[in-house]
């Protein structure tokens, strides 16, 4: 696959950007997010996070046989589920 392939469409993060992050030695989705900005746009990682996790896992597997059972966690999901205007919350109650 071309390294110019876009993984995160919201923030224009390419496959090459992620590969670079992995080459440095990072192996968690939280770190990939912070290093590239992946998953910080309007979709909040709904499109790109699984790809980032898969790339982290593949990198871990090449680190050595002891990493074969490694688990990659998703990054923390941030509310709201979809972008929502402040006005809705200004009319709302403090608890659901």
């Amino acid at each position, binding site marked *: 696959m071309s390294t110019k392939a876009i993984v995160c469409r919201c923030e224009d993060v390419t496959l090459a950007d992620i590969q670079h992050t992995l080459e440095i030695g990072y192996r968690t989705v939280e770190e990939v997010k912070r290093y590239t900005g992946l998953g*910080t746009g309007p979709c909040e990682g709904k499109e790109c996070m699984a790809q980032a996790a898969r790339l982290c896992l593949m990198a871990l597997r090449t680190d050595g046989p002891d990493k074969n059972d490694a688990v990659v966690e998703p990054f923390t999901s941030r*509310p709201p589920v979809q972008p929502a205007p402040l006005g809705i919350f200004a009319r709302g109650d403090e608890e659901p």
Partner: protein
Amino acid sequence: MKPGHEIVPTQGAPRAECDVAIIGGGVMGLGIAYQLAKRGIKKVVVLERGYLAQGASGRNGGGVRMQWSTEQNVRLMQESIELCAGFAQEIGVNIWFRQGGYLFLAKHEKERALMERNVELQNRCGVPTRMMAPEEAGALVPELDISKIVCACYNPKDGVLFPWPFLWGYAHQALKRGVEVHLFTNVSAIERDGSGFVLTTTKGRVRAERVINAAGAWSPEVARLVGVELPNHPHRHEILSTEPLKPFLKPMVSVLSSGLYFSQSMRGEIVTGITVDDDAKGVQLGSRLKFLTTLAKEMVSLVPRFADLKILRQWAGPYDVSPDGHPILGEPPGVPGFFLACGFVGHGFMMAPIISKLYAEWLAGGAKHEVFERCRLSRFAEGKMEKESMILG
């Protein structure tokens, strides 16, 4: 990040012996590590429990201001902002530093006296803060409903920055000078060993002549490892980011009575938070609807046009709250060689540039700045506290 400026964290076990072990790889710990290395103390080991920017250093709004209510804080922040302005040059990383000023708003007549007193103090220190009538504040930020405010004050030299590259910059420069930065490395025990300490970590043991506790909201746990009880406690502070807008908002705007603050980042997002009570104990990073509704009500009342502005995400960071709003520094009684750099009450990020520099100067054999004496742990037992009133959140 420019090629060649990557942060490659240290792999494998920490070195067997070091001069200084720093617990906490946030802005304070990494800042001190960099400043020590710069002064020739290179056998430094930073031990971070998570990833870089996992704690409050990666979760704050990036505000830096000189508008404080005590002379010590005003003067320290003048120097800190000067260091922020020179950061890109010195460290080689763009931190998106933008001096658009801080505009504080008073909604109640009774807040005017405090504001005037603070402005007078800041002017005496050479900070160009000035009082503003509501109309003048409205000229600076036309989106404000100025019928809600009675007066304002503005310092054009305050600003905002992006916290993540700030951390990376310190980490990169520290690593380049031989400092070890260990991520995902927890410290589970600290034992006395002659004049120094032996630390047990998830990656092995390391002997350190001196130890610095820069663990932020987790610092009471770390202090307990050497038998020291700290009076600070964690407090959840929530914050949110909106969809990006074309740049239009010059200053960071903050409301004294509610603790609401909002600024526009260089990516165009509005980054905003507000004071919300929290009864939960310990470090809590969950998001609450109560925060969204509290913030939205105050924000939409003050800036009606923001009713249509979409929230992208909310998150939380842990404040490290000290009883008087001032940090806790220096060596606690009875544990020489163990140094505290905690209790910054949500303002550790903006104070880190100057505090880390002063700390390194002192530990490298230079002068001990008066802030270390003033902010000693024993002030609480002695009852010598000066309350800081300009705490937000």
